[in-house]
């Protein structure tokens, strides 16, 4: 997971791109080059929750349903339509019959079932979003039935991350690791683009797939290239020299300066990715004490962060959910108030204590937030030790209560725009870190769990809104998190890039399948 800063830039089509053999319609031409600072772990759709993986896969694979870039509701993709049983436990999908995978084989319901079976066998991370999903079965060649253990409102939305793989291609490589090893470096999708080169530390190249079932209309590029460039300054230099079209990881300062520069464009997307300080609520130490967390909750200045670190690109949060979302409950988190915090510290004699925070130093604003918190806490006499890690390493530490640090920084990238994707992931005790989820506060409150589960299984939106609002208030009263910010997705790019749109359901990806380059 990474932050929502993407950029793109414009310039002339490189002459060599014409040389790339491509015989499809004339409006598929050119090369789009995207810079990326973090190298992908693999190509496995089981890891599509990881944005570095997802950004490659989003145009390589298709799902039954998909959020189109710029839209907040799902549209059919491989599925043509579906029915839900009255008890909300059975979903029957009709799927397209004209879909060809990149290897030329046709898609049938067997592929869909195979995909889900494999993910379950591999206990894949993407299943986290699938709630009480139980099993899938093929009714006929183009009908799939899925069964849930309990009703689950956002089920259709969650399917947007379930990328359908070709059974014919993957099955021979299942071996003892459920095909993880093979799919890590090979793709078996049906999307508009196929993977042509995979050098995960250097470059990944995608080529337009001639036999794409959706056909080609409008302007598209023939080739999409991801270049892995860790240094923000290098990305900037390459963007300026025209060697990349989109450079998402340059500093906010540089993005600001590009806004006024000729030949570049900065797109600001309405992202909904809250950044949290999560306090280890199950800790035996001080952070396990709600009154201590109450003190901590007042020590972070969100306004300062928004104005100076994010340079104004974002929204002021007042609780874990973005303000304009359904079910948002206002002011469930305490505002910044050092005097109140100081009073608590003095009353309880907390001065002199030491806390530890883990964060991702590669993300500029995470480090800035840690430094901000460190600075404020040190005024209260509390020492905050920081440990910079990478995402997988940090994720590994929260899988055990003993190794969970007092505070963890984490971005929540909701898989679809629904309160469930944020609140359930971050606060349901089923999703605590030691259960393998993103509730790194290890927050466990059975009443909150009940509210979240009830809201998830309901189809009535206003009932859900009430339930989520109530859950937020209960969560707020126990101070498990500080919601640091709701940054906007700021993407700078060359002005030659046409058709870029921010995709809220696939945060930190690029809708390269819709983009053309002048």
């Amino acid at each position, binding site marked *: 997971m990474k932050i929502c800063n993407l950029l793109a830039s414009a310039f002339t089509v490189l002459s060599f791109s014409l040389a790339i053999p491509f015989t499809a319609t004339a409006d598929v031409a050119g090369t789009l080059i995207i810079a990326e600072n973090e190298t992908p772990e693999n190509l496995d759709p089981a890891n599509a929750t990881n944005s570095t993986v997802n950004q490659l896969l989003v145009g390589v694979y298709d799902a039954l349903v998909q959020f189109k870039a710029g839209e907040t509701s799902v549209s059919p993709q491989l599925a043509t339509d579906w029915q839900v049983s009255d008890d909300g436990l059975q979903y029957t999908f009709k799927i397209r019959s004209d879909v060809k995978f990149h290897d030329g084989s046709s898609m049938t319901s067997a592929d869909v079932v195979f995909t889900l079976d494999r993910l379950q066998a591999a206990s894949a991370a993407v299943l986290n979003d699938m709630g009480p999903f139980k099993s899938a079965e093929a009714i006929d060649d183009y009908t799939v039935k899925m069964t849930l253990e309990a009703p689950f409102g956002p089920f259709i939305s969650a399917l947007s991350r379930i990328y359908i793989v070709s059974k014919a291609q993957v099955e021979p490589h299942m071996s003892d690791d459920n095909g993880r090893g093979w799919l890590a470096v090979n793709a078996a999708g049906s999307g508009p683009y196929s993977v042509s*080169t995979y050098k*995960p530390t250097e470059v990944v190249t995608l080529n337009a797939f001639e036999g794409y079932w959706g056909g080609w209309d409008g302007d598209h590029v023939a080739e999409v290239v991801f270049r*892995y460039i860790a*240094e923000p300054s290098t990305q900037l230099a390459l963007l300026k020299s025209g060697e990349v079209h989109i450079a998402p990881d340059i500093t906010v300062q540089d993005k600001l300066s590009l806004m006024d520069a000729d030949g570049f464009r900065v797109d600001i997307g309405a992202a909904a990715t809250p950044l949290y300080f999560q306090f280890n609520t199950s800790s035996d130490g001080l952070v396990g004490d709600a009154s201590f967390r109450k003190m901590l909750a007042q020590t972070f200045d969100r306004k300062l962060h928004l104005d100076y670190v994010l340079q104004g690109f974002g929204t002021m949060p007042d609780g874990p959910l973005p303000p304009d979302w359904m079910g948002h409950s206002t002011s469930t988190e305490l505002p910044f108030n050092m005097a109140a915090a100081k009073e608590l510290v003095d009353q309880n004699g907390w001065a002199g204590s030491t806390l530890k925070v883990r964060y991702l130093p590669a993300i500029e604003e995470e480090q800035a937030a840690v430094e901000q918190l460190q600075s404020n806490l040190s005024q209260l006499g509390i020492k905050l030790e920081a440990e910079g*890690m990478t995402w*997988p390493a940090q994720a590994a*530490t929260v899988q055990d209560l003993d190794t969970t640090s007092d505070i963890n920084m984490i971005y929540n990238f909701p898989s679809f725009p629904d309160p469930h994707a944020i609140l359930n992931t971050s606060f349901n005790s089923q999703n605590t870190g030691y259960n393998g989820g993103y509730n790194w506060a290890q927050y466990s409150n059975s009443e909150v769990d009940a509210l979240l589960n009830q809201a998830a299984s309901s189809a009535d939106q206003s009932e859900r809104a009430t339930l989520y609002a109530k859950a937020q208030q209960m969560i707020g009263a126990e101070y498990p998190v500080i919601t640091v910010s709701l940054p906007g997705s700021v993407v700078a790019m060359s002005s030659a890039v046409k058709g870029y749109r921010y995709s809220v359901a696939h945060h930190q990806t690029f809708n390269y399948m819709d983009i053309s380059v002048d």
Partner: protein
Amino acid sequence: MHYFFQRFVFSLLSLFILTLITFLLSQVVPGDPAIVAAGPNAGAEKIELLRSEMGLDKPLTQQFLIYVGKLAQGDLGKSWFTHQPILEDLIRELPPSLELVIIAMVINLVISLPLGLCSARYNDTRFDSLVRLFAMIGAGLPIFWTALILQNVIGGELQLLPIAGRLSFEYRAFEGYTGFFLLDGLILGRLDVFFDALKHLILPAFSLSLLFTAVGLRITRTAMISEFQKDYVLLARTKAASEPRIMFKHVFPNGAPPSLTVFGMQFGWMLGATVLVEEIYGRPGIGRYAVKAVTQSDIHAVVAVVLVVGIVFLLANLVVDLLLYILNPRGRMDK
């Protein structure tokens, strides 16, 4: 030849201790490797399964034997993150690093040897002082800082050389046989690729070599000075041998071998120091791989890198010994 046998046995022994150390290193990783390996969303059963799959339930000695056995088959384990055999990762990452280190080594030798020789000959002159100053400065410059500055000034501001990558973008589809782009360029007769790869190598190689060149220069100079003080140089002068003849025919062949040993060691150290430059110059390679593995606590990958770099180090030293033997068929080494 007896000497070589000895060296070889010593190398094997080194290799064994190397694996032991790396194995122990993999044991001190905090937390349960099985939990880490299972990744997020794994259940307790899955972890238990992994634990027995990874052989973690067996006694330590047995684990070590299994580890060595797997190593012998070239199995370095799987990365917990890429799910790929680490050996394959390393085969992909090693050539770019070796290419970088070899070029850095060439720069090192091309500067150290002649400059060291000349500065020893003109010991205590202004020229010598300048050389020594250069060595001092080189030995004080942090590699990563030099790399950043050079990248920004020469690559960024002046745009004289490329700032990142191994090849220009237009060659992104270039595939060679060996993974060494310089070599592949030559083999395939693609001189454009060769020169492009070389251009991309200059800055990183120079940044990498500076510190080592400073040390190499100093050591060469010292070795040459002590050679110049030997009586045979005096005798050569009494034979009316010219200065170049004395320098290149007499002093150099005798003074170079001791510094060659140091250069052999430097090869391994440089390979280690790639962790400081590869990321900056956006080059793939073992250093960048190592940093990533460390920060991800991908302990199998870390251990494999340590092992492989250790092996390269041993090989480099063996090569140097062989070279010394060839250069100097008699004497010295048998003692």
